[in-house]
């Protein structure tokens, strides 16, 4: 399987969409227009997109509190997402979930998650469904370096292996869980952990879309062929704080600026496709412009949307009660 011109444009479009979305949420949050907590994915785009470019609606993903990127990469409607983050009635979850609970099951997006380590067991379930119903689907848990230390995560590795499930665990290691360095909190290594459970584990540079795309291709192919689970350790960086409002005093001097200047995943993608003449710079700037205006439109829709009312409070607790 190779990426053709349309695939490359689509990959770039999704990565830009995530970046613009997150930058917009950052600004809007700072302006006091967004309630609650938001955790932004900017800087990590190549991971979600590199993996999700291989997926269809029948494939499931589970996400984290830092979920906007996974949602967009898996095809969730950005306008509905933005409205959700603003707490509006037209939001993807009717304004009931907010940033940390965006989901669209029709797209195979099983939800962002407020509970660190909540996603991996669910992905075993989605993988079991795919296996039992022979849908040909795979299920992918995105989880952070911090989440990799939860019992639920390690139990899921074991379960996925002993049941030979079409599950993939994508450990997005951005170096920190809140203010705590993964270099301190993670004993052993992610790939050795995979090895310990008898599943293939690969480490990849998460700033490089093409590298992520390639290891994801291999893992997904194995899962689709009935060869069981895999783990991918994606090393990357987040550009903003743990949540919006975090002063980021725990990072090193200039740490983020250096990554932005040398390893930004969008820039690396751009360089690569232009150097190799896979795309022209006009193709890319066209995408950038259209994404920008689309995100402005998303924010306008969200701002002007109506808020839920008392009639909405008690709906959707049950189907029938």
């Amino acid at each position: 399987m190779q990426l053709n011109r349309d695939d490359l444009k689509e990959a770039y479009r999704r990565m830009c969409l995530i970046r613009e979305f997150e930058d917009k949420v950052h600004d809007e949050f700072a302006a006091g227009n967004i309630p609650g907590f938001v955790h932004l994915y900017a800087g990590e785009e190549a991971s979600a997109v590199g993996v999700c470019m291989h997926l269809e609606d029948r494939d499931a993903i589970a996400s984290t509190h830092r979920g906007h990127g996974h949602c967009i990469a898996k095809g969730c409607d950005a306008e509905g997402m933005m409205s959700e983050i603003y707490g509006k009635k037209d939001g993807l979850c009717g304004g009931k979930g907010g940033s940390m609970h965006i989901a669209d099951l029709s797209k195979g997006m099983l939800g962002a998650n407020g509970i660190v380590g909540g996603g991996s067991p669910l992905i075993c379930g989605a993988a079991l469904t795919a296996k039992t119903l022979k849908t040909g689907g795979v299920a992918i848990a995105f989880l952070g370096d911090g989440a990799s230390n939860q019992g639920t995560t390690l139990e899921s590795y074991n379960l996925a292996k002993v049941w030979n499930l079409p599950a993939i665990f994508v450990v997005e290691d951005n170096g920190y869980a809140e203010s705590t360095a993964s270099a301190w909190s993670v004993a052993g290594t992610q790939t050795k952990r995979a090895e310990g459970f008898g599943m293939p584990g690969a480490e990849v540079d998460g700033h490089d879309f093409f590298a992520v795309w390639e290891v994801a291709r291999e893992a997904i192919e194995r899962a689709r062929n009935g060869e069981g689970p895999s783990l991918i350790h994606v090393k990357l960086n987040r550009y903003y704080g743990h949540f919006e409002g975090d002063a980021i005093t725990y990072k090193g001097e200039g740490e983020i600026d250096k990554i932005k200047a040398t390893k930004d995943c969008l820039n690396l993608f751009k360089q690569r496709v232009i150097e190799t003449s896979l795309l022209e710079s006009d193709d890319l700037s066209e995408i950038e412009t259209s994404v920008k205006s689309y995100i402005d439109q998303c924010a306008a829709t969200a701002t002007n949307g109506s808020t839920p009312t008392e009639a909405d409070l008690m709906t959707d607790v049950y189907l029938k009660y």
Partner: protein
Amino acid sequence: MSVKSYRQAFNEAIRQEMERDERVIVMGEDISGGMGAPGEDDAWGGVLGVTKGLMPQFGRERVLDTPISESAFIGCAAGAAATGLRPVAELMFVDFMGVCFDQIFNQAAKFRYMFGGKAVTPLVIRTMYGAGFRAASQHSQCLYPLFTHIPGLKVALPSNAYEAKGLMTQAIRDDDPVVIFEHKAMYDEEMEVPDEAYGIPFGEANVTREGDDVTLVAFGRMVNLANEAADSLSASGITCTVVDPRTTSPLDTETILETVSETGRLVVIDEAHPRCNMATDISALVSQEIFSDLKAPVKMVTSPHCPVPFSPALEDLYIPSTAKIEAAVREVLGKGH
């Protein structure tokens, strides 16, 4: 005495107990922060800064940052408590009890009974609860009724900074497992708090107002709302007794029954969901013990039977308000009020 915030009151209680007893240790995720990171030490002091400054004073041996592994470190705190330390473990948001509840309710809570009185488990779990932060369904729950249900656990809900310091100090000195519920929306609320260490005994309610018409029993942050409602009702000549039980386990049933007997009317205010919560518990107590003293049916003001919604428009409807409390009081007083 000096003015302290709810946040500072907890911090000071823990600090003074750590100074007094070197077996007191603190652990939790980002409880100090910046562990293994190149930047500032003690970068966070907990997500909302409650434990800031403890690590620089007491060192990393007594202020332990943990990986995100609640089963392991909450269980570890229980084990350490049963073997000679006095751990104060932070379960960041009470919603995360789902990850580690076995270690709390099957292990720590039951050691003493199961082992025939041989175990002593001076464990304190600090945790944040409550809605109002736009933090949605998995970061806003109350859940203290679930802990109150478990024999072997003590449960405290400080309703202001004075209570926070006294109940926290008491919890650390107590030899049984105690869960302290800190309302996340109250950390910046300030009042005069003594500088020296003091404990507030568990199971002794605080009567914050005395009145003739209705008794309001409220928990945690709801005590403030009950006081506000009582103040505003007094303008229309309605006087209320307000009871803050301080701890749901043990529960000061005596003060509750006495004050309800006096007024003959009860409104219970509980931020938890309406089924099997503190409000139903108190209602059952009162109807069982002093039914004949009641002049009107008991009224409960709680949040509804739905998860905490994200949208501010819905969350504001979800949380009990002073308006709802006032309406309930007028309702139990009947026509003309």
